[in-house]
């Protein structure tokens, strides 16, 4: 009886020690890995997507003309060939170490207004990452992001006459995602996803890539403007790509 008890304790102790060692070595490897791995995957929609209403831009003749041949529809759920779901933001919601989280990419993406649409419809940004807002149309636009009230981000609302230089903006806190409206053209609607660390946005085929991910175990979250968020745990090894696919159910 007693012996059994002793063996049990020792095995547990050894096991714990072993795990401990394993973990610590793991850590050291991780630190040495310079170029992180990547997370890729495809996002699919299961079921029939909701009808995307065509947008009538007759109020703004210039835009109406621009889209005369290829009518524009709403972009709430955009499904590509083979059911790939577009405009899904994928980011690391858990597991990031402080160092990576605080890094701010140097490039400044541009949020363009063209043909009375936001290009891109959904843009992922890092916290404190600067981005430019530009107007390629021959008429004024208005940019009115509506972040959650009393959060780290503050609502602003300004117009951009044609031919004026792009202006620079930045968001202070993580928020997935900030809806952006044009007050002059009610149909213009887009999202700015502000997240810490590396992110990806799914393309027309529903596939995305998050690069420069340090090896480690993460919770990967995919956000879609209609279907909300999904998460899964993945472990990223040094340098080698990890896949994480998501499937949203059509309501």
């Amino acid at each position, binding site marked *: 009886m007693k012996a059994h008890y002793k063996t049990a304790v020792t095995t547990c102790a050894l096991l714990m020690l072993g795990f401990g060692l394993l973990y610590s070595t793991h850590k050291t490897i991780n630190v040495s890995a310079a170029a992180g791995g990547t997370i890729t995957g495809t996002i699919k929609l299961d079921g029939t997507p909701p009808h995307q209403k065509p947008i*009538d831009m007759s109020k703004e003749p210039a835009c109406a003309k621009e889209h005369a041949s290829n009518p524009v529809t709403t972009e709430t759920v955009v499904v590509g060939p083979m059911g790939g779901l577009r405009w899904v933001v994928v980011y690391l919601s858990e597991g990031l170490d402080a160092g990576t989280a605080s890094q701010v990419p140097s490039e400044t993406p541009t949020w363009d207004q063209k043909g009375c649409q936001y290009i891109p419809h959904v843009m992922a940004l890092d916290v404190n990452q600067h981005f430019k807002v530009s107007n390629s149309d021959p008429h004024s636009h*208005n940019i009115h992001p509506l972040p959650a009230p009393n959060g780290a981000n503050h609502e602003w609302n300004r117009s951009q006459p044609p031919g004026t230089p792009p202006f620079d903006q930045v968001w202070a806190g993580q928020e997935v995602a900030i809806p952006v409206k044009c*007050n002059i053209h009610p149909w213009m609607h887009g999202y700015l996803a502000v997240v810490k660390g590396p992110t990806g946005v799914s393309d027309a085929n529903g596939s995305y890539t998050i690069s420069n991910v340090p090896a480690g175990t993460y919770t990967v979250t995919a956000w879609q403007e209609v279907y909300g968020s999904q998460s899964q745990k993945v472990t990223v090894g040094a340098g080698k790509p990890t896949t994480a696919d998501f499937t949203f159910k059509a309501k």
Partner: protein
Amino acid sequence: MAKFFAVTILVIAILSAIPIVRNTWHPVEDISTHGQAIDDQLSETMWEAGISFLASQILLAWLIWRFSSNRAGEKTKSFPGGAMGLVAAAFILVGVEVLALGIFGVKAWANLYFTPPGSDAMPVQVQAGQFAFYFRYPGPDGKFGPIHADKISEASQNFFGLDPDSDPDAKDDIVTAEMAIPVNREIRLLMHAKDVSHSFYVPALRIHQDFVPGLDLQIHFTATKIGRYEIVCSQLCGLGHYNMKAYLDVLSQQDFDDWLRKEAAMQ
């Protein structure tokens, strides 16, 4: 100096009158059944106002011309008619004039606002929001689905906050960004404001009515001429006010039906 001033007044008065006389600037052509009365009222008023304008400016100019030369020893004279004469003139001329205008004007106003729409009038709903008009046709069932303010979403183009899944009436409602109406058919327009005060101004239709948030108004009119006209907002509603407009297509019944079918298909 004074004579020059008199001449200046005269010249300005005449120059101001020329564009009116030559009708250089005039309201767009009227395409409504009730508009004629308004136009008559306008030209009526234009005559009386124009005459009073010219008459008094010319009189003023003449008086300045005549009485500015201070001949030595000349005594000031008083107007023979005296004050009471002028007061009487004001009451008789202007009083009668404007009261007549007012009374005749009642007709023009009344046949727009005090006549109920015919029972066969076609219902159309217009919703004004920052900064666009959207229109709703009841569809085959002739009934508008209820508006759920909490469901209104410009992102998904659900401008009226319809809920087809739970409201049968809303299923066949047709929402459009342009207003099309059949020619020579009376329209009963239901006006709903989504956010702030706006105004529904169609110069060609001689229709001008504010949207009142929290109070849905109704107007009715009949368009008599096929064509493409403009609806603009004339009540300051925010930064996009200048660009708040929509097109009004007056179509033949046939074209209208086709158009409505096309729109229905796109819902």
